[in-house]
């Protein structure tokens, strides 16, 4: 076992007494981690808000919900996995599964819009249709990163 030397005593004289506090990120409890992750999925930025990262929470909320609703305004549509037309290897049309996965990442933005009927009647003839879809994919996919970031903070891996 390594013993304390003079240099260690000079650098951290109070370490052995327990009064020296390292500024390391601390892990939150397991239930709080789970709540933060679910909240981060439902409302972009909510996970960071629960973990006390208010600035980042506001930034994520504005940018991700902004991207999603900009997509809706630009005539983007909400995707849902559709059954593939035979003959097909898979039951579902894979591209719609991927598009759905990208969009559902934005949580309540998707669910509430779907429930209210926004984006459910596609207008592919609109000049901004593809722009709208792209912004909605962006919102969902970025929120997956934000959920991951919230988990890292809650687990004490990140400040």
């Amino acid at each position: 076992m390594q013993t304390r030397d003079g240099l260690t005593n000079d650098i951290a004289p109070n370490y052995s007494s327990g009064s020296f506090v390292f500024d390391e990120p601390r892990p939150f409890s397991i239930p709080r981690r789970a709540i933060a992750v679910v909240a981060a999925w439902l409302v972009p930025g909510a996970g960071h808000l629960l973990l006390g990262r208010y600035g980042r929470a506001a930034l994520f909320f504005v940018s991700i919900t902004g991207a999603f609703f900009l997509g809706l305004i630009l005539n983007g549509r909400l995707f849902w996995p559709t059954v593939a037309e035979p003959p097909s290897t898979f039951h579902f049309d894979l591209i719609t599964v991927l598009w759905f996965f990208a969009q559902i990442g934005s949580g309540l933005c998707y669910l509430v819009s779907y429930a209210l009927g926004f984006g459910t009647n596609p207008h592919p003839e609109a000049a901004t249709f593809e722009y709208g879809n792209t912004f909605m994919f962006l919102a969902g996919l970025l929120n997956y990163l934000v959920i991951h970031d919230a988990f890292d903070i809650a687990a004490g891996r990140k400040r």
Partner: protein
Amino acid sequence: MHVLMMSLYAAIAAVVLAAVDPKSDTTRQRLVHGLKIFGSFLGIGLLLSWVLFPVPW
């Protein structure tokens, strides 16, 4: 219109990617990282459009 949409897309992506970057500890580092991402999106987008412009399909 297309450049405006590309810029908006790049700005939103840059803000989020810079904010979640685990290697940036300070606001200044995040800002620099975000500007690099924004510039990369725009630069690569413009370069690709220039390279692909003669392609007929």
